[in-house]
């Protein structure tokens, strides 16, 4: 089912890619988010795409007015399997060690703050973390292991989100 345009926006759902485009694997969130957006648009869904390099207080202005938020980001783990996909909810982020790494305020706290002061921010939030190998070296291409492991990720994200949307009251993507 296609969502009607949200208030002041062209869509109800925002796909947000997080990452640094010149930091090797850190760009993966941007790359996959673009593909997720493209697939959803092909399906006729009402979605917007945004990109950011940090999810701090300025995140609020970006997501205001949307009902659903889908974040795609790189994920650092100690023994990465490049391309392994995790789906997290805001509650998971709050307990992660550096959920506060985003200059003082993780996305969970930023959205809570926004709601606290009466700003309309998405209630449905999915965060997809993709395990990466090297987000520390400047470069414009992904490491080969990651590059060869991401083709299926946008499909997995779209399938998961479609299933979730059907189960939710909003029923739209």
């Amino acid at each position, binding site marked *: 089912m296609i969502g009607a345009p949200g208030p002041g926006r062209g869509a109800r759902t925002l796909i947000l890619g*997080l*990452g*640094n*485009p*010149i*930091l090797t*694997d*850190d760009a993966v*969130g941007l790359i996959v988010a673009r593909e997720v957006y493209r697939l959803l648009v092909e399906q006729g869904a009402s979605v917007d795409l945004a990109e*950011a*390099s*940090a*999810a*701090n*207080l*300025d995140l*609020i*202005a970006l997501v205001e007015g949307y009902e659903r938020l889908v974040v795609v*980001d*790189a*994920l*650092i*783990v*100690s*023994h990465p399997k490049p391309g392994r996909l*995790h789906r*997290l909810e805001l509650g998971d*982020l709050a307990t*992660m*060690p*550096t959920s*506060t*790494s*985003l*200059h*003082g*305020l993780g996305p969970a*706290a930023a959205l*809570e*703050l*926004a709601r*606290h*002061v*009466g*700003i309309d921010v998405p209630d449905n939030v999915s*965060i997809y*973390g993709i*395990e*990466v190998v090297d*987000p*520390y*070296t*400047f*470069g414009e291409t992904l490491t080969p292991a990651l590059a060869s492991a991401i083709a299926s990720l946008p499909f997995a994200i779209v399938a998961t989100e479609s299933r979730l949307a059907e189960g939710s009251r909003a029923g739209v993507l």
Partner: protein
Amino acid sequence: MAATQDGPTLRTVRIDPITRLEGHGRIQLFLDEKGEVADAFFQVPELRGFEKFCEGRPVEELARITPRICGVCPEAHHIASAKALDAVFGVEPPPAGRKLRELLYSAFFAGDHTTHFYALGGPDFVVGPDAPKAERNILGVIAKVGLDAGKLVLRQRREAQEVVAMVGGKAIHPVCGLPGGVSKPITEAERARIEEIARNSLEFAKFSLRVFDDVVLSSPQYVDMIRSDAYQLRTHYIGLVDEKNRVNFYDGRVRVVDPSGLEVVRFAASQYAEFIEERVEPWTYLKFPYLKKVGWRGFVDGAQSGVYRATPLSRLNAADGMATPLAQAEYERMYASLGGKPVHATLATHWARLIELLYAAERTLELATDPEITSPDIRTIPTATPGEGIGVVEAPRGTLFHHYVADERGMAKRVNLIVGTTNNHAAICMSIKRAAQGLIRGGVLPTDGTLNRIEMAFRAYDPCFGCATHALPGEMPLEILVYGPDGQVRQRLAR
């Protein structure tokens, strides 16, 4: 790490990762057999290959590449880069071009300092250093100060980005800076809106100083804490000053004062390599800049040590005053309250930061009402063969140098940056050690509150090593490990 080789007689207390810090940091405290702090180390992972990444690209692209280093202060890199490019191409921007850059920069500065006070540094004071970690955040601040404060903070951030977008062409990652000026003028309608935003920002800055008065300065406990030995460091200070030695964020000379406040030197950005040297230590990739002519004497303070600081407080210490009236009045009040210049109390940096917020707001308003600001004469077109250039600005976290060398075709051959926080790297390590030595009592396992008080010593610097990846961290443990003299973990604290 070398220190771990000192063996089982040392116990380790690790605060890892540091809460509310950009990127991943690690503090390690080494306790001796009596449980006293023997040493302290502060480590961050460094990004690799930036210089190589830049080499061979058209040098003017660096104004768009360097802001990508960091998700927090791209505006500072953009403006420093534009100034370095002026020098590379041997051009001076016309007055309106220069003023538009400073206008963007002042608005950005006010937004950035706002985040630090309300989200990073302030919660320790407003909510309290011993409050549970879950409450020591901006939501805790709002619970104390009121819901309206939360709305004002968000408006301040949003409007700062609005100015950056109007002047810079794009929020967060502005694209206006070019060698010789900026790419577009502003309209009268935009100017009027910026003036309105500047007035809001000014009221917000005054409000923030009142909050600081009510919460911090009216509390004898906090004033004692600010003045306590655990948070003092007698270092040199540096900061950009104008021709009257007043604080300036956009341009001027770098002024250096010694720990007694006397001027050591006043130099142009192009001379920085004569005065600043970078030291390498075996236990971290991050360098330690120091004053070359004073020399490196190790991690010690005092007049004989080349360790310097470049923070909001350092800028005030290195200057003779502020260039705007309200900020000047606050400047005088701060030094009168804290016993004269210079102030060595690291925690007073929070006060200095709010004075800078006030200055940034006043300066934004001055520039927004400058008759020249809407002039279409915004750029001097470069005609000279490109060469070498150095640009400097005061970034919120310290003096920021961009140094480029281009070949005759304008391709980057060498790129060197000294970023804000790096200036303070040695001082941050020393501040942590001093606070740990002052706060951890031998034989007593530190409490969460004690460890937070140690973190406060470096949080005052608004450290941002987040010229680093922002990716989500996964399995990294958030814990404090206390090792017994036998090298075994004696206590594990989840944070």
